């Protein structure tokens, strides 16, 4: 293969050959099938692979040769498009080695050429075998999308040295900006959430406390802020604790790209959906260690989790939950009616850590279902 030439140049030639081979592979495969079909109709039953390759190559070269010669005759006559007579003339040239009827008579008109008679005879006698497969039109030409020049974009090049017809520079943001934009987005989100918090009109001291607590939770959200599904606070430590008598449900196997926190999140949602009313009551009535026992509520021994999540969407105030009515009422009034909130506050004096996972559930209604 390498005949004393430099290794590099031979490699270049090799790669270009490979490329050409790659481009022609499809055509060659088709040619191989077609040739094999013709040979089968003649009476062959099998092929040596090398013989088939050679034969299909020869057939393709023959077609190219016909094209070349007839094109030559067309351009000799001053035309760019070939007609029948160019092809017949070309075929006559190619068949001269074999000989055909009337080959010796050079004055014969091309329309009465022996080639045509031979061909029509062949067409009449041979059985018509179509190609075995349907072929898409090829070659497929990809349209290349070139970057616009300075002129097309209507911009002036940064320096005079660069003529305006040259393509524009790549946007420096596209290569470096990906992480920063994400952070910006999430910061925006945090702002929105804070605004939303103000809209909810919690009592000032409470909201401050909640905000303080949530400040630690927000960075987790920020990390995955661009994904709408992960807007919920993903802290597994803030998830709703399991109720007595409840079992951990094995989480559904998710695609690997979802993070573990996400799985935990889904899991907790699942629980809250299953048994909604109980957490709700606890949410309202349990204030850490001393809940009012007179109401007959379940006293929560553990430290209740705080899970605050505010959606930007308008859904936040609408109550689309489907638990029993009691819980629903509470949820509805909780966000809409501030007076009710105050009453609740009076009832549960030390209510500081409130698991507000209703909100989260509403948010998940759109996501999970």
């Amino acid at each position, binding site marked *: 293969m390498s005949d004393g030439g430099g290794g590099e140049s031979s490699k270049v030639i090799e790669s270009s050959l490979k490329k050409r081979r790659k481009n022609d592979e499809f055509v060659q495969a088709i040619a191989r099938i077609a040739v094999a079909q013709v040979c089968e109709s003649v009476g*062959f039953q099998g092929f040596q692979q090398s*013989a088939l390759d050679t034969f299909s190559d020869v057939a393709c070269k023959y077609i190219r040769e016909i*094209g070349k010669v007839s094109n030559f005759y067309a351009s000799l006559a001053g035309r760019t498009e070939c007609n029948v007579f160019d092809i017949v003339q070309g075929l006559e040239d190619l068949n001269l*080695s074999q000989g055909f009827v009337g080959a010796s008579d050079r004055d014969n008109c091309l329309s009465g050429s022996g080639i045509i008679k031979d061909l029509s005879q*062949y067409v009449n006698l041979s059985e018509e075998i179509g190609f075995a497969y349907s072929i898409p039109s090829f070659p497929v030409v990809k349209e290349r999308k070139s970057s616009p020049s300075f002129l097309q974009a209507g911009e002036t090049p940064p320096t005079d040295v660069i003529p305006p017809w040259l393509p524009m520079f790549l946007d420096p943001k596209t290569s470096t900006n990906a992480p920063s934009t994400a952070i910006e987005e999430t910061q925006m989100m945090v702002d929105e959430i804070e605004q939303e918090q103000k809209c909810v009109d919690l009592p000032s001291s409470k909201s401050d406390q909640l905000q303080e607590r949530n400040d630690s939770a927000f960075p987790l959200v920020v990390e995955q802020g661009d994904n709408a599904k992960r807007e919920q606070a993903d802290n597994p430590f803030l998830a709703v604790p399991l109720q007595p008598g409840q079992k951990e449900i094995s989480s559904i196997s998710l695609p690997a790209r979802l993070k573990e926190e996400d799985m935990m999140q889904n899991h907790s949602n699942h629980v809250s959906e299953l048994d909604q009313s109980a957490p709700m009551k606890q949410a309202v009535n349990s204030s850490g260690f001393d809940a009012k026992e007179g109401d007959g509520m379940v006293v929560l021994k553990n430290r209740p989790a705080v899970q605050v999540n505010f959606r930007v969407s308008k859904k936040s105030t609408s109550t689309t939950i489907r638990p029993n009515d009691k819980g629903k009422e509470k949820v509805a009034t909780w966000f809409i009616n501030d007076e009710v909130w105050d009453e609740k506050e009076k009832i549960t004096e030390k209510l500081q850590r409130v698991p507000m996972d209703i909100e989260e559930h509403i948010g998940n209604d759109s996501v999970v279902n």
Partner: protein
Amino acid sequence: MNHNQQSNEVRHDDENALSDFLASLTDYTPTIPDELVEHYLAKSGFQCPDVRLTRLVAVAAQKFVSDIAIDALQHCKARQATVVRDKKDKQQRDKRLIMNMEDLSKALQEYGVNVKHQEYFADNPSAGLESASRDE
């Protein structure tokens, strides 16, 4: 004068035969697909939007291929006859008509194509490349 008229009539018949043949090609589907022929014709600089001419080239190529195949078949049969005479125990295997490089090169020789039978043949493309890379 009379002779001239006669030749005119003959020419007229020939033209009719040619146009009839070209018209019949629109219904005829050659084994070599149009796309393949168009591709190779386009590569050689041939320009013609007429399908009939593409078909004409396809039929010509098909005839060429089948002529060679018939010749190769004769060579194959002749070779097998001699082989069978030499070794009678391999009769069963030799019954199938398989195109050989030997037969093909003999048949192609008559059509002006000189194909040399390979000394060896690497059946898959990687085999040759591997040996080449080893050489380097």
